[in-house]
């Protein structure tokens, strides 16, 4: 029987037949103990969930007015902007929501990198997160094609064309993806179909992500496990109210962009209808793809039978897939960078490298950008393949506190040296 206590007869009646209240209580309520020291960086998970809900709700309403046909798609979006009641609001929320979704998820991922959240026993949780990122990227890429502007069309063309780099069957794969001999109506139709489907796949994966999270609970800024009730607090009301406050802050930033500068993050040329005969001067993807685009274009030389294009494609995908094996590349038993003086510095250099790659991606693939992009790409992979494995052995971490409540009680991790153990087995 359930351990859920209530005096409300209606809740009791339902709970007896369908124990949904005790389920919620265990999931996000008083029965889910959570480390008491989570910082605001831990808000970004719930923010990503909020962003996903916003995208699905606005997307479904947009789909009621959108026409997935090359002759009507652009005009149907303009009809939404002009004639549909509050259509401009739906469209601008969805358009900028994509960007904010990525901002939130990127911060969420870098949070994990800094605090070592990918380490045992949370490897699977982390890996599901990486797959979520990949599906999100596919969704956003296909969504961007739907308004059928110049950049929609040419972006789709450039990215789908990448598959032609696969030896022997590449050309056939591209024709299969397009459903024809160019990006055309069949392509737009299947992209719309998948763009509608994938967000729901995402919902399923998010459920599994949270399921895995609940197995061990959240990591925390100290990167040590909770050692007992004194280290944790019930999720509700402490973190529910903190997450709600975070959502408020997020919504302020988000709505300020939606209502006051909705086109700041977009490419102007996408307000021009797709024209297969006119190639834009610069084809650039949305900002959140720029670092990968820089990696893709940084390869300008063939190696043996591998064409430069193919290596570029492989590196681009590898730049994300490498995150899947990160738990086995970084062998340091200490999670939090708070206690890893060298890793902390290298983390920030890595962040700077990603931003640098994004900047290169926004510029033409020619010197000097090309060389900067090549250096940035080399460093990106060196960070994972050389620096982190070496660091696991070479770095001397600072002593860890005994427990979460210890430094918390003493008012921050200043005076914990006296009682600290040398290192904790993770």
């Amino acid at each position: 029987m359930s351990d859920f206590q209530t005096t409300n007869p209606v809740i009791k009646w339902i709970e007896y037949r369908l124990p949904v209240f005790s389920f919620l209580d265990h999931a996000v309520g008083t029965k889910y103990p959570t480390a008491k020291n989570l910082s605001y960086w831990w808000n970004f998970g719930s923010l990503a969930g909020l962003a996903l809900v916003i995208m699905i709700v606005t997307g479904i309403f947009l789909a009621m007015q959108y026409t997935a046909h090359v002759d009507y798609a652009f005009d149907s979006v303009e009809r939404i902007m002009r004639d549909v009641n509050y259509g401009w609001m739906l469209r601008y929320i969805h358009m900028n929501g994509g960007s904010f979704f990525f901002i939130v998820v990127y911060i969420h991922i870098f949070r994990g990198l800094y605090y070592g959240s990918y380490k045992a026993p949370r490897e699977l949780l982390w890996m599901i997160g990486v797959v979520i990122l990949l599906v999100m990227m596919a969704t956003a890429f296909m969504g961007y094609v739907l308004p059928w502007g110049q950049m929609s069309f040419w972006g789709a063309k450039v990215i789908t064309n990448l598959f032609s780099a696969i030896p022997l069957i590449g050309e056939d794969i591209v024709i299969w993806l397009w459903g024809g001999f160019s990006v055309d109506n069949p392509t737009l139709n299947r992209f719309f179909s998948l763009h509608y489907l994938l967000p729901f796949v995402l919902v399923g994966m998010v459920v599994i992500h949270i399921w895995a999270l609940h197995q061990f609970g959240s990591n925390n800024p100290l990167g040590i496990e909770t050692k007992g009730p004194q280290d944790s607090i019930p999720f509700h009301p402490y973190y529910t109210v903190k997450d709600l406050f975070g959502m408020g802050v997020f919504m302020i930033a988000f709505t300020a962009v939606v209502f006051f500068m909705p086109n700041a993050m977009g490419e102007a040329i996408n307000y021009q209808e797709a024209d297969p005969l006119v190639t834009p001067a610069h084809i650039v993807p949305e900002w959140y793809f720029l670092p990968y685009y820089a990696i893709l274009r940084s390869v300008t030389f063939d190696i043996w039978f591998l064409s430069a294009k193919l290596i570029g494609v492989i590196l681009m995908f590898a730049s994300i897939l490498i995150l899947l094996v990160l738990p086995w590349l970084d062998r340091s038993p200490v999670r939090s960078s708070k206690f890893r003086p060298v890793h902390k510095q290298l983390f920030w250099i890595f962040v700077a490298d990603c931003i640098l790659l994004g900047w290169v991606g926004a510029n033409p693939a020619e010197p000097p950008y090309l060389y900067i992009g090549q250096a940035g790409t080399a460093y990106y992979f060196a960070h994972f393949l050389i620096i982190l494995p070496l660091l696991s052995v070479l770095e001397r971490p600072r002593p860890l506190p005994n427990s979460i409540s210890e430094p918390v009680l003493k008012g921050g991790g200043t005076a914990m040296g006296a009682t600290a153990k040398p290192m904790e087995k993770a």
Partner: protein
Amino acid sequence: MKRVVAGVLSAAILAFGTQTMAAEDKALPDFKWSFDGIFGQFDRPALQRGFQVYREVCSACHSLRLIAFRDLADLGYDVEQIKAFAAEATVVDGPDDEGEMFEREGRPSDRIPSPFPNAKAAAAANGGSTPPDLSLMAKARPHGPSYIRALLSDGYEDAPAGFEILEGQSYNAYFPGNRIAMAPPLGDDAVEYQDGTEASVDRMAADVAHFLMWTAEPKLEQRKQTGIKVVLFLLVLTGILYAIKRKVWADLH
């Protein structure tokens, strides 16, 4: 260390901000517009003047296919004026009961008719270049309104020595590549403004750019007004949530 990172970051952000402008050799002037900023609104007299410039000059070559006559009510015209604008246009309608297409006088619900039946005809009449539709032009170019204003006014200058300009092209300092297939469309007093404003080239360029911002973003005013209410509401709500958060967490700190 931190400073190095901060330096790299700010350099990257600066570069992001300026890279869109790098292509043109003459920097775009930073014109001020009444619709700038979170309280920005359109200027009705400027919109009406801009519409007049479009109607009397640009409409000879450029379509405005997303705009219907009745939308012009936004510019402050009344029903009779809009009917009169529409009546000037001839629209192909049909088929009638005999299956024939026929021509009739425009109605407010009609879209503004395009000057050419199709893009090929437009190109043929303009030395091979199609004059693009202007409905979304102000959003389809970086810094659209300022770009359009500059393009139409002081963008037209003498080509630098040695810069080759072909028959049917003009030199324009702001147009990418500097060779534009549109002859300078505006000359002083090209229109006689109904409100008596002096029709200098710069005035007309500014007015038509203002008007084109409206055609590109007709919901701009509604958007900003709604935004102010939404953001104010969220500020209050978030303030309350913060207070509750403090209260709930008080026993822990």
